[in-house]
């Protein structure tokens, strides 16, 4: 996006803006199913959320296994309505946008609590390993959960990664070890142990290490001179260790405390440019946090929840070859975050519930650059909700408030901001005998400008307003059982609009780009899915199909050249299919994702057209019960047909890969 006149600082800025600076803070807490008033419990077979007021997709460990997912972002590609932008390989940035809203409008939470990255606004879903996730849940609209934190409730869509909870049952201790080895020297090892410490306490500890060379072959397309090359500088080395203490303080109060450590060092796989062989940018991350969560139900009618967290993330970006004075760029950032949240839920009758939530968050970004603004942002989220839920009808209403205050060490801080946004939802069991529901929702939401939007060198502008978004959605959902066949189907249509989009555009001085509230996007979309699972019998097949249609139109300027053009990286048509079969002898699965043609730029000229692509995979696995332990062996092939494609322009995706996994459960 640099022009010859835009000076070069802009170039550096953009490079840094595009940096995959990883998720900042994580809080482990499970709020998904704490309020189970007359709700259908979620099981692996029933994922469409028949009683949910908005579309939701859930991946359990079985689906993650059947789709050959290594990272959480892999399984999200099978969710309708979600668009994953993937820079390829284990280390390439992976972000998710839902319903044409832009990745920053999708809240990402670990164990129910939102993760924020105030610097870039982008959460890399590639950093979550599929092994650490017990389930991944995408909700595209208001959630039925009344114990949601205020910050989560304010988002138009949310992805919640839930950790694997210890389920000891009668056992005193449970230990699991897993080893994976795959193409391009990808090795990962995981150890997990959980044990009881007294009657009311459980301790869980988990560590996972992943290393990959990532040197996969790809084709650099160049008209008649395309060449076969190997990806370099895409090695990744990660270590994650966490320990959790689950305690039942008394019959009505539970406490969880979790300590978390994550470190990574990796190359940044480069944009493949002609003749430019340089790929030596490096990225380091260190993240630590401690958090605790207390949930109490002091009476029949009242439930209280309190979360607290302190976290720190250090990021270092090094480009050893820059034609500046030093001959390199070495950026170091420290983002710190303190967080406190409280939710109170009151049950007036069996049908009527109300809740109030209040979140406070203090975030601070420091860096080594001489021109760093060192911003601090205090955010307050408040939310009040009511819900009526009978056997056949659910109505929810919520009002969210956000207020921010910012300060900086040098130069002016951004304006303070406050916003009120309403959310409503309804679900009606219209044909009880068939299990057919109608659902509809409306969300009004926003996304705050990131620290980069506001403060980055020439590009940042302090007078930015948040982006505003609204989504109206309606659909049908059906769940039923027919002779040990569990069938669910959903079809949702929506209309979303984002105003005041924050984009980099040429400023007053046309040689200098700057951030502006300029864009307007309207999306008409449709998403549908069918799940069929045989729940009983020796041989249990299952299939899951989904299809997404998205028409995301640029409505910024009716005289402009991009009027009605499709948003970049948003295919109009995309689909996925997974099928697996469980038998007493062996289990098998195959999976397919497909994306239609799309564009790499907001201007839909032929020079930006990206071809359609697909990826096919399959796996075989078997569990063997031995005397003292159980052993699972799994073989997978990812991208079976070795289809070579780029999802993000100039960032090739890996071709065919194999992986072997051995899991031992003691």
């Amino acid at each position: 996006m640099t022009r010859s006149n835009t000076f070069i600082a802009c170039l550096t800025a953009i490079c840094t803006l595009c940096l995959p600076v990883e998720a900042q803070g994580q809080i482990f807490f499970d709020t998904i199913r704490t309020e189970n008033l007359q709700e259908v419990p979620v099981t692996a077979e029933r994922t469409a959320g028949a009683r949910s007021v908005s579309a939701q997709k859930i991946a359990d460990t079985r689906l993650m296994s059947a789709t050959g997912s290594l990272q959480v972002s892999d399984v999200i590609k099978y969710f309708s309505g979600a668009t994953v932008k993937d820079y390829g390989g284990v280390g390439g940035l992976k972000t998710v946008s839902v319903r044409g809203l832009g990745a920053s409008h999708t809240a990402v939470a670990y164990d129910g609590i939102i993760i924020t990255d105030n610097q870039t606004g982008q959460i890399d879903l590639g950093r979550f390993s599929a092994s650490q996730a017990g389930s991944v849940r995408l909700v595209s609209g208001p959630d039925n959960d009344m114990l949601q934190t205020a910050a989560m409730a304010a988002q138009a869509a949310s992805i919640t990664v839930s950790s694997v909870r210890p389920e000891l049952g009668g056992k005193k201790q449970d230990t699991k070890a897993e080893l994976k080895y795959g193409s391009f020297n990808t090795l990962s090892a995981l150890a997990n142990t959980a044990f009881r410490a007294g009657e009311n306490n459980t301790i869980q500890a988990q560590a996972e290490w992943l290393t990959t060379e990532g040197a996969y072959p790809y084709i650099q397309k160049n008209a008649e001179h395309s060449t076969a090359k190997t990806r370099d500088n895409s090695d990744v080395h990660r270590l994650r260790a966490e320990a959790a203490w689950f305690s039942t303080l008394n019959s009505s109060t539970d406490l969880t405390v979790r300590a978390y450590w994550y470190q990574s060092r990796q190359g940044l796989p480069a944009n493949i440019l002609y003749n430019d062989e340089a790929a030596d940018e490096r990225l380091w991350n260190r993240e630590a946090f401690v958090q605790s969560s207390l949930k109490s139900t002091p009476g029949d009618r009242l439930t209280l929840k309190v979360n607290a967290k302190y976290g720190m993330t250090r990021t270092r970006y090094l480009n050893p070859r820059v034609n500046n004075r030093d001959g390199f760029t070495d950026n170091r950032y420290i983002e710190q975050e303190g967080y406190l949240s409280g939710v109170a839920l009151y049950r007036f009758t069996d049908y009527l519930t109300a809740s109030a939530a209040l979140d406070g968050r203090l975030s601070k970004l420091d860096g080594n650059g001489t021109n760093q603004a060192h911003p601090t942002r205090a955010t307050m989220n408040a939310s009040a909700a009511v819900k009526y839920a009978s056997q056949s009808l659910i109505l929810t209403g919520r009002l969210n408030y956000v207020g921010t205050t910012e300060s900086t060490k040098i130069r002016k801080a951004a304006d303070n901001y406050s916003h009120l946004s309403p959310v409503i939802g309804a679900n009606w069991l219209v044909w009880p005998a068939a299990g057919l529901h109608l659902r509809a929702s409306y969300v009004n939401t926003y996304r705050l400008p990131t620290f980069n939007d506001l403060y980055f060198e020439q590009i940042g502008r302090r007078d930015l307003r948040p982006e505003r978004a609204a989504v109206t959605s309606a659909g049908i959902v059906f769940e039923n059982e027919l002779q040990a066949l569990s069938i669910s189907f959903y079809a949702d249509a929506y209309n979303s609009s984002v105003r005041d989009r924050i984009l980099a555009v040429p400023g007053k001085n046309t040689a200098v780009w700057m951030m502006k509230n300029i864009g307007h996007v309207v999306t008409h979309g449709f998403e549908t899915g069918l799940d069929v699972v045989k729940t009983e019998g020796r041989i249990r097949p299952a299939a899951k199909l989904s299809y997404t249609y998205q028409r995301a139109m640029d409505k910024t300027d009716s005289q402009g050249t991009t009027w009605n053009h499709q948003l970049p990286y948003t295919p109009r048509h995309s689909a996925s299919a997974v099928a697996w079969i469980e038998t007493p002898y062996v289990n098998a699965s195959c999976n397919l994702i497909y994306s239609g043609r799309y564009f790499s730029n907001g201007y839909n000229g032929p020079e930006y057209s990206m071809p359609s692509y697909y990826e096919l995979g399959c796996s075989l696995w078997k569990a063997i019960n031995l005397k003292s332990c159980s052993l699972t062996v799994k073989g997978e092939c990812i991208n079976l047909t070795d289809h070579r494609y780029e999802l993000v322009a100039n960032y090739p995706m890996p071709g065919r890969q194999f992986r072997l996994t051995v899991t031992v459960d003691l």
Partner: protein
Amino acid sequence: MKRAAYIFIISLLCLVSCDPEPVLIGESQAIADAGHTGVYVLSEGLFNLNNSTLSWIDFSTGLPDSWSAPTGNSYDCFEKVNGRRLGDTANDILLYGSRLYIAVNVSSTIEILDAATGHSLKQIQMSRNGNPSEPRYMTANGHYVYVCSFDGTVTRIDTLTMKADATVTVGRNPDGICCTAGKLYVSNSGGLDFDNPDSTVSVIDLATFSEIKRISVRQNPGSIYADGNRVYVVSRGIYDYDKNDYDSRLHCIDTENDQVIETYDIPILKMDLHDGQAWFYGYGSGGTIQILDLASGRIIDSDFITDGTIIERPYGIKVEPTSHKVYVCDAADYVTPGSLCCFAPDGHLLYRIRNIGINPNTIVFCDVPVTLNEYQGEVQNKSDIDSVCQYMPAPGQFVGEMPKYEEGDDSLSMAGKCLELLQKGEMITLGGFGGYVTVRFKQTVHNLSGADFRIDGNAFEGSSEPGVVWVSADVNGNGKPDDPWYELYGSEQAAGRSTKGYTVTYTKPSASNMDTPWTGSDGREGSILYNAYHGHYYYPMWYDTATKAFTGTLLPENMYQEGTKWVMSSFEYGYVDNLSNSPENSSFDIDLAHDSNGLPVHLDSIRFVRIQCAVIGCNRLTGEESTEVSTIYNLHPDADQ
């Protein structure tokens, strides 16, 4: 569900895709300009998308040359001709001699193209110690093109060998280069250190190719322009966070003492100078084009465009020196393909050509007819010859360089090296007067109507080093050039202005850094003058005698001095390396063959051609006149079938 279906159907109706076609708006008869055949327009594309393009707009059609690329209709003639893409962020294009030079910044290459065909003759990787240099802007003088690169260097490219032969270190991140008064001026921006830019202009002496001075200017100097004994440089200053803008100045440097003599508070972004005036667009002034009087430093026209035409984002400007038509590249919103606007001298829009490329930044006028053929796979042999029978150069500064002489080489191995170069379409030198090369065509060249074969050199206006062409048929069929030779008469023989059978005898000097003396058959004496650029014997090292005599046709003197410049004028027709390469300028008709008595001869066909340097001029600055030969074509390759 009804609603969903409704939305679905409505959305399907919106599935209208748009394929932008180039559109010419305006009067097509207004396109012709000062005898140019057309313009090449370089578009840099979007940063890190590998999508720089080169378009050719032929003044006879007024539309970009388009073709059907595998990815859709394309106006990128670089890909069309070369079967590959230009790369990422092509910043500058220069037409010098018969060649186009393109600096591709992020891909860090210089592409050298034949202007008449768009064919890439050479891609130079620009790097230092394995790090990409990131070439930015170029200028040319004499035999050299000079490139300034972001890694703080200026590289000299020899236009004959097409190789980088020297590098000089300047300040940080040069962002402009110009040449005047025997010196190069390079603006050291330091722009990659956003908060700590450079603030100097480097002065490089052309003769020694070394930095002789750094002139202090305001911070972050960028565009730089030469105008006789003045150099104008735009300095952007430090970015002002409160104003969200730069506060830029224009400096004027006197080239006599290399000092800033004037600073104007005019926020210029890019300009083009002619006749003491600068047509420019500025920072913060939107699409306004203004005219500055350089002598007074006053803006004499604050809004050049008179008819309300809107230029969204001017991104390049060029004034045709004689017609004074003003060409402006409009980058639109930097994302969609931009357009080229042509204005009459009075500021009204003559025409606009849309969709010529993303971020068009530079245009060059072209005077030779351009034919752009679609890529047909790698051409193995560019020349239609299969043997170099004799390579007998006279002494010259490039002798031993093109082709390269190595210890132990003899006449035979040098001829082999010539064949290798000619087959690749690369250049060989014949040295001074009398030096020659004899080549054999792969097939017999038939004498059909019109031109029968073509020989390319490296001539351009003011740089003609003509050589006479001799032809011979393989009468005895032995494949050797031992048959009668006939001279192809050019304009000078036909007019009786040439000297037949002139002999020059060269003597090898006693040291490599000395002039090479000669005596003519009429008693004249002279020397092939030594210069600092080429520090080797100019006398061919593989000759075993200390003197060597060459006999051939001598053409009238064509070298003279014009101010400080040396000019080598061209003859009307009939010589190699006389006019810039084109089918018209470089082709020969066997019907022009004459025997030793000066009588026309009819030949049905020929097999051999000899090219012999036919001029004897020499000066200390640019060296001797020496014919150069690159590609040799049989124009009737299928006539045998």
